[in-house]
């Protein structure tokens, strides 16, 4: 197991180097550079422009620049952003990466959970009257033009109903008189850490419960663990971080609409795939065996059919990661969510090469890590491919 993870990590490092190089050369292949915006300015002579380029590290051949960049990158120096001069790229990314991570994480979990559950029921109650309606909704979400859909969501829920803010990361007025220790990135990182603890904790408690030996005892351990985990974090926020809590709620309120929108886009595909996969599984002989054993229908549905139907859906999750990242760029732009996607877009448009490559690099790292996690989860789900 550890050997497998080690091997995969090494593979991923190699993939990453190839990816980074390709990104570098692709960006270099664009015509022009950032100095061109001074082209029409009569006060800036070509000599000054050349000097400017030299200073930004755009002098020399592409090969020289490449070697310098790679050398700097792997020694932890991502350079300085051109467009947000003189902020360091790593500083900008450290601020925005968590925001994108949160968006992706919640949207993926929501769309996967929702899609899987509804697909499961759809297959189980095949032929019901709601089926064509739900299937049509699924096809709609799967095929809708995403930017339009995001705008419609804003129009309906933010502009029309006013339930959610129209965009942005926080309500500025509310934060003006925030106490000195409370600062947006700090609050947001605390929220993200809490969410990660819940996720990892729930998974860990589940594993411990499974290994408890006795099934009934295992179930009790699992439930006790879940309650302890959520209760503990609740108390922690209510006491230690009580000052931050109302501001965290403000960010969470801003997070809802983009997350739901991104989740809905992925939801249709997951639901339809789960439905198809579940219908196939229900034809399997082991379903008949389970029925013959006198197992109740609900257990057959969840423990036998859905558990096996989960496998191809998990595979598709890997494939949909790329799509999700693309969707992330659009979501962040439409909702003015200052994350990696929005940063990437504006940096690329302004030919801010260090920031663009940096953003690409970290999106790649996220995708590779997500990929690795899904592979490990898949191994856990399917004993046939365990190493």
């Amino acid at each position, binding site marked *: 197991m550890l050997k497998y993870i080690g091997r995969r990590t090494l593979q991923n490092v190699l993939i990453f180097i190839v990816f980074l190089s390709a990104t570098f050369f692709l960006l270099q292949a664009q015509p022009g550079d950032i100095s061109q915006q001074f082209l029409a300015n009569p006060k800036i002579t070509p000599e000054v422009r050349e000097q400017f380029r030299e200073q930004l590290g755009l002098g020399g051949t592409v090969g020289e620049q490449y070697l310098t960049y790679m050398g700097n990158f792997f020694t932890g120096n991502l350079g300085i952003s051109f467009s947000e001069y003189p902020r360091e790229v790593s500083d900008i990314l450290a601020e925005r990466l968590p925001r994108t991570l949160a968006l992706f994480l919640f949207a993926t979990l929501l769309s996967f959970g929702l899609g899987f559950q509804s697909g499961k029921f759809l297959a189980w109650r095949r032929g019901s009257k709601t089926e064509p309606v739900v299937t049509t909704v699924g096809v709609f979400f799967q095929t809708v033009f995403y930017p339009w859909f995001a705008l419609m969501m804003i129009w309906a829920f933010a502009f029309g109903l006013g339930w959610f803010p129209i965009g942005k990361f926080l309500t500025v007025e509310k934060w003006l008189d925030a106490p000195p220790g409370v600062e947006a990135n700090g609050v947001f990182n605390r929220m993200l850490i809490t969410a990660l603890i819940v996720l990892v904790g729930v998974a860990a408690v589940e594993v411990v419960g499974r290994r408890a*030996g006795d099934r009934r005892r295992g179930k009790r351990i699992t439930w006790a663990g879940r309650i302890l985990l959520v209760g503990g974090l609740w108390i922690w926020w209510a006491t230690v971080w009580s000052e931050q809590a109302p501001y965290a709620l403000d960010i969470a309120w801003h997070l809802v609409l983009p997350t739901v929108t991104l989740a809905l886009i992925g939801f249709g595909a997951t639901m339809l795939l789960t439905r198809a996969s579940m219908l196939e599984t229900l034809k399997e002989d*082991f379903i008949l065996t389970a*029925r*013959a*054993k*006198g197992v109740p229908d609900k257990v057959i549905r969840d423990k036998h059919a859905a558990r096996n139907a989960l496998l191809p859906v998990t595979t598709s999750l890997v494939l949909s990661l790329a799509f999700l990242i693309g969707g992330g760029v659009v979501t962040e732009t439409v909702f003015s969510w200052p994350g990696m996607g929005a940063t990437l877009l504006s940096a690329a448009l302004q030919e801010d090469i260090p920031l663009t490559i940096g953003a690409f690099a970290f999106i790649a790292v996220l995708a590779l890590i997500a990929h690795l996690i899904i592979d490990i989860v898949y191994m856990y789900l399917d*004993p046939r491919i365990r190493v």
Partner: protein
Amino acid sequence: MNETAIERNGGVQSGRPILEVDGLVMHYRTKAGDVSAVEEVTFALGRGEALGLVGESGCGKTSVAMTLIRLLPDNAIIKEGSVVLDGLNVAELTDGEMRKHRWADISMVFQGAMNAWNPVYKVGDQIMEALEQHFPDMSEAEGRVRIAELFELVGLSPAMMDRYPHEFSGGMRQRAVIAMALSCNPKVIIADEPTTALDVIVQDQILKELRKIQEELGMSIIYISHDVAVIAEVSDRIGVMYAGRLVELGATDEVFPRPRHPYTYLLLSSTPSVVGPRRRLAPLEGEPPNLLAPPTGCRFQPRCPFAAEICASQDPPSQELAPGHHVACWHWEQVPELGRLEA
């Protein structure tokens, strides 16, 4: 019914039969009309007896089995008849009531054991699931002891219970399926093509072991197979099915040497035998009838070399030729001894 059912057992076992099927009619409702899959099937299974049901694909063998354990698809309807399992008419139970009796009273060894296991759970855990369902008071440790016993009984190492199905060979999977079928001490076991997916050597081993276990435990078992040789090896009595009907029923050592129904005769003539005299194999001409619109009169009549007018107009009743030997044919006297028919 009770007395006749005992008589029909041919005196193999005394006492009331464990399973009595009387006049069972089961149809599948389809858009094209009703498919008459099981028509007027009557037989009884004595305690400790092995009954073999044989016939071509689609003749209703598996439909009978599925009716007994009540695992029919939604479009199946039991139109008439009763299935009395140790005094309980399972044909009248609701699905929820039947669930309690499945496996605990009547279990099944499925065909194609490859897919009978859920690939994501350990084999032992899947047997445990049945135990948990029917013996809720049994602890996990007791369950494991029980599974270890069962594994030893079917010739598997008890350590295998913590392995996944894909780690088993085909033969081992089939043995484990048998262990699972035995797990709740059922009164009746239905073995539906128990060895079809296996090579002949493993097939033979497993059949011998099943026979041994059945005799040791005094189980009642119904074998279902299209393979006459398999049925001959393991059954005390044999029932031959054709197009949803039970055309001949009798002790194996009576039916095999001297079949009385033309279909049984042709079926046996088309099957090579390693032992016994060499004879020409006679192919069985024609196809089984379309059960959406079965032929009038005798269902075998369109393919039967002995068919006469009466066959097309009237359904032959089941007659008892010798104690326990039943045949549904108008012209059973004309059926020659095996190997004598010149086509």
